[in-house]
């Protein structure tokens, strides 16, 4: 049985458009993510990046459509496939690539790696690598905003695999009971590691993963996540709802990852044609075509943007390569806020 085919909708009607600059912003974010991930793929093969590396290729519209639909001071938290969301949020490609290289100039000083991208300055509250753990943390971040009576909304990402974790149900319940300003975004890329969503979730057969929020009375929708405009509209709706004090909102973004679960995954559990199908609906190509048709871009302008981002990624690679590893004393730093750790010395 193939992964659920995503209903291909007609390209959004040309009358419903956004400002020209927003299209360019989307494209820049999505290209930055794509080229960054391609470069980290290569660097991994060269042995410059180690550990687990989970790439975001194919899901770019979700990150780009989301961050542009919320405010810069709205906190965001993610699972471990976090590069795309961090870059969309504004993390520099230098800090991101250096982190993958394990260098002290990385976003987490080389101590977090691919799965743990944090960026306080950009309100990126981290990548979390225990499936589902960040769902409750995201609700807690929203709890703090409500407690302070701010109007900020926490965007909480997780994957289709996390749908089956108990923490999601616990959190949906409390988020609704306490009317927390949180937007839950399930990035359904069709596979929890190698297990297709139809093999792991009964909800898939009962209409879709988004329905998990229904019994709690949380508004919920399934969105075509390969179309940045659709994503943007949905997140705008959801964030406005949460910001107005109506409590949580749930979105299932139907998307697809082109690469394996991580670098060690050859992806033998899925047919080649399925991947080709989705590649044919590539979110970046779709956006390019849309911009050309709207007259918002010329082929030459599109090429120029790509060249600019290629140069940025080359610079990030060079920066990561030439940066130093953390000094030995970093091993002992940041274990506690309290100074003088270790508190007693062995020798």
């Amino acid at each position, binding site marked *: 049985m193939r992964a659920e085919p995503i209903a291909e909708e007609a390209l959004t009607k040309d009358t419903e458009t956004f400002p020209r600059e927003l299209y360019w912003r989307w494209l820049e974010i999505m290209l930055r993510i794509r080229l960054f991930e391609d470069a980290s793929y290569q660097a991994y093969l060269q042995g410059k990046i180690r550990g687990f590396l989970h790439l975001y290729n194919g899901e770019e519209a979700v990150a780009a459509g989301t961050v542009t639909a919320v405010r810069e001071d709205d906190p965001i938290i993610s699972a471990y496939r976090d590069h795309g969301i961090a870059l969309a949020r504004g993390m520099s490609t230098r800090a991101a690539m250096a982190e993958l290289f394990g260098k002290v100039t990385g976003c987490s000083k080389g101590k977090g790696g691919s799965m743990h991208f*944090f960026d306080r300055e950009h309100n990126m509250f981290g990548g979390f690598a225990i499936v589902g753990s960040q769902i409750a943390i995201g609700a807690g971040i*929203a709890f703090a905003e409500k407690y302070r009576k701010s109007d900020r909304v926490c965007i909480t990402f997780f994957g289709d695999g996390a749908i089956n974790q108990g923490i999601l149900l616990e959190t949906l319940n409390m988020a609704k009971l306490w009317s927390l300003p949180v937007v839950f975004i399930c990035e359904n890329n069709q596979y929890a590691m190698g297990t297709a969503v139809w093999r792991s979730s009964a909800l898939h057969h009962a209409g879709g993963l988004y329905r998990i929020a229904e019994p709690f009375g949380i508004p919920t929708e399934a969105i075509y996540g390969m179309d940045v405009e659709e994503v943007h509209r949905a997140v705008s709706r959801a964030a406005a709802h949460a910001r107005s004090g109506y409590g949580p909102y749930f979105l299932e973004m139907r998307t697809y990852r082109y690469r394996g679960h991580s670098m060690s995954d050859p992806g033998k559990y899925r047919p080649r044609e399925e991947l080709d199908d989705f590649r044919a609906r590539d979110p970046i190509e779709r956006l390019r075509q849309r911009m050309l048709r709207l007259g918002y871009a010329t082929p030459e302008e599109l090429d120029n943007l790509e060249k600019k981002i290629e140069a940025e990624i080359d610079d990030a690679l060079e920066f990561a390569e030439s940066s130093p590893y953390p000094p030995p004393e970093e091993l002992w730093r940041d274990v506690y806020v309290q100074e003088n750790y270790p508190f007693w010395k062995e020798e």
Partner: protein
Amino acid sequence: MPRILQMREAIREAMIEEMERDERVFLMGEEVGYYHGAYKVSEGMLERFGPTRVIDTPISELGFAGIGVGAAMNGLRPIVEFMTWNFALLAADQIINSAAKILYMSGGQFRVPIVFRGPNGYAGQLAATHSQAFEAFYAHVPGLKVVSPATPYDAKGLLKSAIRDDDPVLFLESELLYSLKGEVPEEEYLIPIGKADVKRPGKDVTLVSFNKLLHVTMDAAKELEKEGIDAEVIDLRTIRPLDIETIIQSVKKTNRIVIVDETWPYMSVASEITYQVQKFAFDYLDAPVRRVNCTDTPAPYAPNLLKEYFPSVEKVVRAVKEVMYYTI
């Protein structure tokens, strides 16, 4: 002016004072509000602070522990109460994978100033799942601090420090001690985390304990006194960071040590102290280190078995006589 307070009142006072001092502090947990706390620790706090700062949670330990962690990352200072630490096992992922590691994984960008608190260990005939002591379990984890007080005075001063601490602190109380009475001053005071307290000075043997077994150990010291053995009793108060200096100073004086520890013996608090004593006071020891722990079994229900399971005055006295080379 010292007053006599129950342990639960001392803990409550610490929370109330800190909540009045700092708006970012709030209390959440099962039954903390309308029910006034499963053990009446938070009695009256809902009325005093209202439902935005005293929050009743559903029975979802993992979920509300995670919400606490997120709130702490985002600038609040939560006190998360577990009805007992046995139930907190469901939240262990948030405590160990999140709270203990976020500062490190973020390269120092995000702090998690949170207190997880609740009763811990043996509490009568509650059998295996309701009788576990977790000091050693959590003290194993870098990034956590573990406090386990034995008296109302210590509990209040340490909890106030824990709430002000910028690191995650696990505060292990005891159902059996909530009604224990003790002197607590009117005026404000803090007790630093990581400092042991010599509860009884002595010269013949060092006894180290914490939480409810401190009282068993003090009783044992009285028994030993009748036989002419002058025991020094150290109350650890904090398990991590461990105040090894106070223990070493004492051992250098007495040359003998018995550790009375509620955790299971294998990989216990006693195991770590034993290692450090042999490392730092090897030449001062006149006898092998002895420990008295719960037996290496789940806690039984039957009263006769339970007596065998739990450390007692008799067991401590016997262990002390062994290190004193007395004939038993």
